[in-house]
C-alpha cells in the first residue's frame, strides 16, 4: 500500500485503485394482525402480517459500491443492491454512472442514476443514513421507481450565505413493480422520466421544490380485460364514448406527475423534516393524491429518539360512473369494474411512528420502531382480508451498517 502522502503527490489518479464500499440492513418486523400485508413500498408483493407475522425480508438489504476516480474532475461508480422488490432479492444494478464536476457550479452525470424525486428518495436503501427503520410508507411507499437510465445536471451558486442548486434530469425507467397479484407485474421499462428541483441549503436548513413526470409506456395488466371490453366493437355500438373512456383509463402514454416540497432542519443533535407531495395523473385510473410527513429526532449521546407522523389523502373521492347504467347487465358489470379499478387506487392512510436509534459503532446502528397504521383505502397494503379493521401495529428492529 502506497503511503497516502505519496498518493497525494501522484500527478495522475490512474494509480488509484477502485474503492469498494457497501451498506446493509438486517431487519425484523412483527405485525399484530394477520389480516393484511404491510409492505415497505409497492414494489413488494407481500409483506408482514398476512404472509408472515414476523418478517425478516421487508427492510433487509445489502448493497455494494465500486468507485473509481478517473481524473480530478471525473469519477465513476457502480452500485448493486439486493432487496425485496418485484424481483424478490435478485441483485440489481441501481447506479452505474460517470460524473463530471468541472467546478463548484456544475455537476453532470450520465448512466444509471437514482431517481431523485424527493429529498432522500435516492438513498432510501441505505438504512444507516437516516433516523428511521424505513422511510415513512405513506409518503415513500407509492414510489415505484428507484433508478433510471439517462443523465442529470446540477447547477449551483452561492446565494446570501447559502447554496442554491437547480437540478434537471431525464431518462427512461427500467424497473417493474408488483400489482398485488403474485405473477402480474407492471413493467416500467422504457417509460420516460423527466424532472428537476430547486434547492436552497444553508448551514442548518434545506428547502426543496421538485417536479417530476413519468410517461407510462406499458399497460397496467389487471386493467387489460376491462380495457378490452371497453374497446369492443359490440360495446361501442351501444356506447360510442366507451373506447374514449378506455383511453382515459389506460396507463399507456398517460403522464404521471410528482410535485413535492420539503424542508429539513439539521442543527447539531436536532434533526427535523417536513415534506409534502402531490401525485396526479392524466389517467382516470390514478386519482390525485397528497401525502406529507413530519419527523423530529434529537440525539442524546448515542441515542436518538424520534417520532414521525405521516399521512396520505386522496384529493377528492367521487368516482362518477361514466357508463350509462341499466342498459344491460353486461354494461352494469363493466361499470362496476370500472369504478372498482379507480376505487382501488385511492390512498387514505395515516401512520404514527415512535422509535429510537442507537449508535452501536462508528459505522453501525440499531433501531427500534413502533408504527401505528390506520388505513381507509387499500392502495398501500397487500392481501387485505375481509373483516380487516384497517389498523395494524408494527414493531421493527433493524441493524444497519456501512463499510
Amino acid at each position, binding site marked *: 500500500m502506497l503511503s497516502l502522502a505519496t498518493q497525494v503527490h501522484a500527478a495522475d489518479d490512474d494509480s488509484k485503485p477502485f474503492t469498494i464500499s457497501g*451498506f446493509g440492513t438486517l431487519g425484523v418486523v412483527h405485525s399484530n394482525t394477520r389480516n393484511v400485508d404491510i409492505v415497505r413500498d409497492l414494489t413488494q408483493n407481500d409483506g408482514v402480517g398476512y404472509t408472515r407475522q414476523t418478517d425478516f425480508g421487508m427492510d433487509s438489504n445489502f448493497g455494494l459500491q465500486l468507485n473509481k476516480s478517473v481524473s480530478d474532475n471525473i469519477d465513476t461508480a457502480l452500485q448493486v443492491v439486493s432487496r425485496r422488490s418485484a424481483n424478490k432479492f435478485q441483485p440489481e444494478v441501481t447506479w452505474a454512472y460517470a460524473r463530471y464536476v468541472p467546478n463548484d457550479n456544475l455537476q453532470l452525470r450520465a448512466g444509471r442514476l437514482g431517481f431523485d424525486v424527493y429529498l*432522500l428518495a435516492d438513498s432510501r436503501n441505505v438504512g444507516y443514513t*437516516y433516523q428511521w427503520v424505513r422511510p415513512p410508507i405513506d409518503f415513500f411507499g407509492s414510489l415505484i421507481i428507484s433508478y433510471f437510465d439517462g443523465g442529470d445536471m446540477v447547477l449551483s451558486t452561492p446565494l446570501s450565505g447559502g447554496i442554491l442548486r437547480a437540478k434537471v434530469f431525464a431518462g427512461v425507467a427500467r424497473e417493474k413493480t408488483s400489482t398485488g397479484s403474485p405473477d402480474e407485474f407492471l413493467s416500467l421499462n422504457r417509460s420516460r422520466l423527466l424532472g428537476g428541483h430547486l434547492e436552497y441549503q444553508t448551514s442548518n436548513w434545506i428547502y426543496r421544490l421538485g417536479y417530476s413526470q413519468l410517461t407510462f409506456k406499458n399497460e397496467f395488466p389487471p386493467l387489460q380485460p376491462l380495457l378490452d371490453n371497453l374497446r369492443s366493437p359490440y360495446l361501442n355500438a351501444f356506447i360510442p364514448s366507451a373506447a374514449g373512456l378506455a383511453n382515459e383509463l389506460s396507463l399507456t402514454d398517460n403522464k404521471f406527475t410528482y410535485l413535492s416540497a420539503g424542508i429539513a432542519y439539521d442543527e*447539531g443533535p436536532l434533526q427535523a423534516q417536513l415534506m409534502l407531495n402531490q401525485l396526479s395523473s392524466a389517467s382516470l385510473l390514478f386519482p390525485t393524491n397528497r401525502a406529507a410527513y413530519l419527523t423530529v429526532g434529537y440525539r442524546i449521546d448515542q441515542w436518538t429518539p424520534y417520532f414521525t407522523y405521516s399521512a396520505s389523502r386522496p384529493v377528492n373521492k367521487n368516482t362518477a360512473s361514466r357508463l350509462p347504467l341499466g342498459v344491460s347487465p353486461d354494461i352494469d358489470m363493466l361499470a362496476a369494474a370500472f369504478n372498482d379499478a379507480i376505487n382501488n387506487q385511492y390512498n387514505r392512510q395515516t401512520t404514527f411512528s415512535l422509535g429510537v436509534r442507537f449508535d452501536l459503532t462508528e459505522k453501525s446502528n440499531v433501531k427500534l420502531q413502533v408504527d401505528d397504521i390506520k388505513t381507509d383505502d387499500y392502495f398501500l397494503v397487500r392481501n387485505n382480508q375481509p373483516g380487516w379493521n384497517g389498523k395494524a401495529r408494527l414493531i421493527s428492529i433493524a441493524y444497519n451498517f*456501512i463499510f
Partner: protein
Amino acid sequence: MKALCHLILCLGFWGCCHAAQADLVVIANPQSGIEKLSKDEVINLYMGRNRKLASGMNAMPLDMTAANTEKAKFYALLVNKNLPEINSYWARLMFSGQGSPPMQVESADEVMDIVSSNKAAIGYIERKKLDKRVRMIYDPTQ
C-alpha cells in the same frame, strides 16, 4: 429550540448541547493563497459543499482517522455532531453519487507533512503543533 434543549437537560439527560472543548485550528499551505477562512467556508469544504479555493485550485481537505481524538472534537466544534452522524451524512452522499468524504490520514504529523508540501491541502491540528511550515487559516476561538 434552546428552550427545549434546556428542558431536556433539566429532565436529567446529560451530555447534550455542549461542544467538546478542544484547542484545534485549521491550517493551509503558506503558498495556498488563503489568508483566512470563515467558519462557513470551513464547513463547506469539510462537508463537501464546495471544493474550489480562491486560487481556483480544488481544495484537498484532510480528515483524520477516528482513532485520533481530534477528529471527534473537530466535528463537535464545527457542526456540533458526533462521528456516527458525520458518517451517516457522508454515506448518504456517497451512496447517492454526490461525492466522497475527505481523505483520511493517520496522524497529526502526517497532516503537517501533507499540508506543508501541498498547496491545495487543508487540515486541522492542535494549536500546540503549529509551526512555520503551515499557516493557520481558521481559529475557532476568534
